[in-house]
């Protein structure tokens, strides 16, 4: 008989999505942060 364990697969897919989406957002945030910092430094060095 086929076991009823879909909840394990659902949890696995959900957690994997959380990891990938979180990392995507972290990368976007880090890039924005460094771009902002780069802009600030350039305007400070070149008034």
């Amino acid at each position, binding site marked *: 008989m086929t076991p009823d364990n879909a909840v394990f*697969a659902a949890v696995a897919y959900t*957690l994997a999505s959380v990891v990938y989406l979180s990392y995507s957002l972290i990368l976007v945030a880090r890039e924005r942060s460094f771009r902002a910092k780069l802009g600030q430094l350039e305007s400070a060095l070149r008034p």
Partner: protein
Amino acid sequence: MTHASATDLAPPRRPDALLGIALAAVVGVYVRAWAFTPIEARQGAAQKILYIHASAAFIALYLAFVLLAIASALYLWLKDEKLDRVAESAAEVGLVFTTVVLITGPLWGKTIWGAWWTWDARLTSTLFLWFIILSYSMLRGAVEDRARRARYSAVLGILAALLVPFIHLSVYMFRTLHPMPILLKPSTPSMSPEMRTTFLLAFLAFTLLFAAFLRARYRVATLRDLVADLEQEAA
């Protein structure tokens, strides 16, 4: 470096289309795996974890950490900072994929083996590699001098990647609960054609995601180094 050259060297600011396409491809694979791929009779729906678990493992071990080793070795030879950035990006993205492997594996294991975890060769060595890559990231954060950081990291990156062949062969060398490869083996893959297609599509989608992450992470590393150069100039 002049002030203008920092702007010139910075990667162009535009929406990351590759990341968007890769995430959409992963969503497509999720839909195919859940709605259009049959449930395996003996394992039940938990067998669908294969599509995300094995893809992540393959990408982490054979793409990310092999790239880490190659870029690290080339850095030690050529001393090109771009190679160090590739290595650090591959390590971090590989860590993300290995994290997915270590999260999804126990969920699958519980349904098949009745246990979340077993200290067998494959699982233990994968966890060990995860810790080594984590320590690689911590090492990078701890060493300030850029050249020294790159040199130390390159050595640790190569040592970490030496675990990959051991992890691959562990299921053959030791008695382990972890199954042998079901697709990448000399004989015919033990999967139905629909499952095989879903697995191959998952592998392609996650490879695209790996490429998108790697490119975005490399961009972050480039911007960070430009900021560090300007901070040094301002000091």
